């Protein structure tokens, strides 16, 4: 195993934060991801983009070891995930949990510290303070003791983000952090991501909104069961690659998107605080 110390002092680009080799994942007999080979650079905001059912969430879950792949391997900073857990933060899809669960926003954020707290032990005052700080970073400090069902969708998303921040990871995997949130939360989430990039962290996020890919992200992974393309947004996020990713659907999609874009200034204004 690569020693942490040598890596930390070493040059930046030496070991990619995430390396996927020859990955194939299937649900029952239905393959979802085919032969994915991918190496992502450190310190970027990276979008995973592709149509519904393209295997975007599956890719994240396979990286986290939540799904067993048929073939292939995943390396985080050059080592298997099991050895790198504490370097990785995870934001699942908001809909994946029951928000009526009897717990507060603070409790949820504290869960991000469970890995460090370890078995049996209860969170201490120090951990609670840390959780408060993370809530502060997403502008949710005042909602710490709210029951989570009393939060809006955007606020719930920010709580999830705060929980990942509490993990103090170097690589963040986020499943649609921008899905179904209001304009205020969208700005808050983006600010957090940009702050992470400033600190040299890497963020890999599944992203649905093609309109904002170029604005929010530096690097893009185009996925449709197979890897279509991966690279800097400027050179990779092209009409041609999108056509390859979305097939014939994109022509319809782009028309719809243009129509949306025409309305957009008004729509943005309408989402008042």
């Amino acid at each position, binding site marked *: 195993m690569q020693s942490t110390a040598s890596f930390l002092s070493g040059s930046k680009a030496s070991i990619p934060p995430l390396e996927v080799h020859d990955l194939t994942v299937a649900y029952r007999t239905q393959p979802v991801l085919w032969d994915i080979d991918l190496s992502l650079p450190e310190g970027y905001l990276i979008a995973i983009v592709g149509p519904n059912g393209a295997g975007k969430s599956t890719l994240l879950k396979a990286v986290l070891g939540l799904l067993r792949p048929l073939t292939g391997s995943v390396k985080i900073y050059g080592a298997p995930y099991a050895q790198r857990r504490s370097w990785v933060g*995870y934001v699942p899809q908001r809909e994946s949990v029951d928000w009526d669960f*009897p717990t507060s926003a603070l*409790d949820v954020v504290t869960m991000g510290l*469970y*890995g460090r707290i370890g078995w049996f032990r209860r969170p201490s005052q120090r951990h609670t303070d840390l959780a408060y700080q993370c809530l502060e970073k997403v502008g949710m400090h005042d909602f710490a003791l709210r029951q989570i069902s009393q939060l809006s969708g955007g606020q719930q998303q920010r709580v999830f983000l705060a929980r990942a921040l509490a993990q103090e990871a170097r690589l963040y995997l986020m499943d649609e952090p921008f899905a179904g949130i209001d304009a205020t939360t969208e700005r808050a989430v983006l600010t957090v991501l940009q702050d992470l990039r400033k600190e040299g962290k890497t963020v890999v996020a599944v992203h649905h909104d093609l309109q904002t890919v170029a604005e929010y992200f530096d690097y893009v992974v185009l996925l449709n069961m197979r890897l279509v393309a991966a690279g800097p947004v400027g050179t990779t996020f092209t009409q041609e690659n999108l056509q390859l990713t979305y097939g014939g659907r994109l022509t319809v999609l782009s028309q719809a998107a243009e129509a949306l874009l025409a309305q957009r200034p008004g729509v943005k204004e309408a989402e008042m605080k």
Partner: protein
Amino acid sequence: MGISYTLWNVLLGATLLGLVGGVLGSFALLRRQSLLADALAHAALPGVCLAFLLTGQKSPGLLLAGAAATGVLGALCVILIVRGSQLIKEDSAIGIVLSVFFAFGIVLITKIQRMPSGNQSGLDKYLFGQVATLVTEDLWVMCGIIAIVVTTVAVFFKELRLLCFDRAFGASLGFPMRGLEVLLTCLLVMVVVVGLQIVGVVLMVSTLVTPAAAARQWTDRLGSMILVSGVLGMFGAVTGVLLSSASDSLPPGPTIVLVSSFVLVLSILFAPRRGILWARLRERAVRLRIRRENLLKDLYTLGERSQSWTVLTPLHTLTAMRGQPARELRKNSRVLAAQGLAMLSGDEVRLTESGLQAAEKVVRKHRLWEVYLTRRLELPTDHVHRDAEAMEHALTDDAVEQLEERLGSPVLDPHGKPIPPRIRP
């Protein structure tokens, strides 16, 4: 009434079961596994019978071991059916397993009772429970199981919370979620097995789910929910047993279930915040406020024509505006009068000075929102009134100020009517 040795045993046994059922039931409820627990309980019946048939003995330890074995087998069958078949969903799988195992159990019980040695076997007590047969030995077993359950929940509280709330995230942190699930299921099996003697396979699930569902109504914290659930479980058990012992016609197991269910109904109705009653009251309060604000606004618009807002207006004029019956209007006017916002004399009503201010506030919200909709969303002016009717009651004072600022403090609404200024000149 003196407490006999038997009653004492029954009370103690039922209370312990209520406690432990309530605690574990919270987890079953939150993990949406109430039905699985029900299947597990029903699947325990053939195990009791098989143990008796195979050994010819009816020592409780042996029969309960059999119960645990087929209970686990039933739960495994559910999992295998769901995994193995793409078409059968979990609820159907549970339905199938529950009835198949239970039917098999009933067949075996019937067979045993027709056997020469079988009619005094007393196996049918496992159907609906029979607390009176509890002996001190059973109580010790129960105490042991409770100690295990309470200790496990206390030690793994943090990890169990993670499992119930966000399994995938917990797994990503490296906690063995599958192992914790197995642990929780084992505890459930133990509780179901001890519960069989008291409430029986048919009603067992109620001792798990009912107190937990009631507790959820009273609290928003996992720790306190588990605690309250345990307490409610004990309460139901004690009350049920005492009621049953005071009457000849009330069997203890079902009485416990009925008492717990009554507590649940009360909780659903009256618990603060989540209770249906308070929700209805809150809705009513909002409805009444909207009606009063509408009355204020109508009085204002009527006064606008003559530019004099504090003259008396007949109630029937107001009825014509919104189609509200005079009786309703009179009632609302009285409330406004009590708040010093209006004066009612006979069949006529007028705004007071502070009433006028309150009315202006409502009108301001309405007209500013109309401006907002027409300017920013470019809606036609004849489409904005209905939306503004709702927003005038919903906008907070802060939001209105921001709105006014963004719109550049407009003076007229889209219909050309003046927007009352925030501070009157």
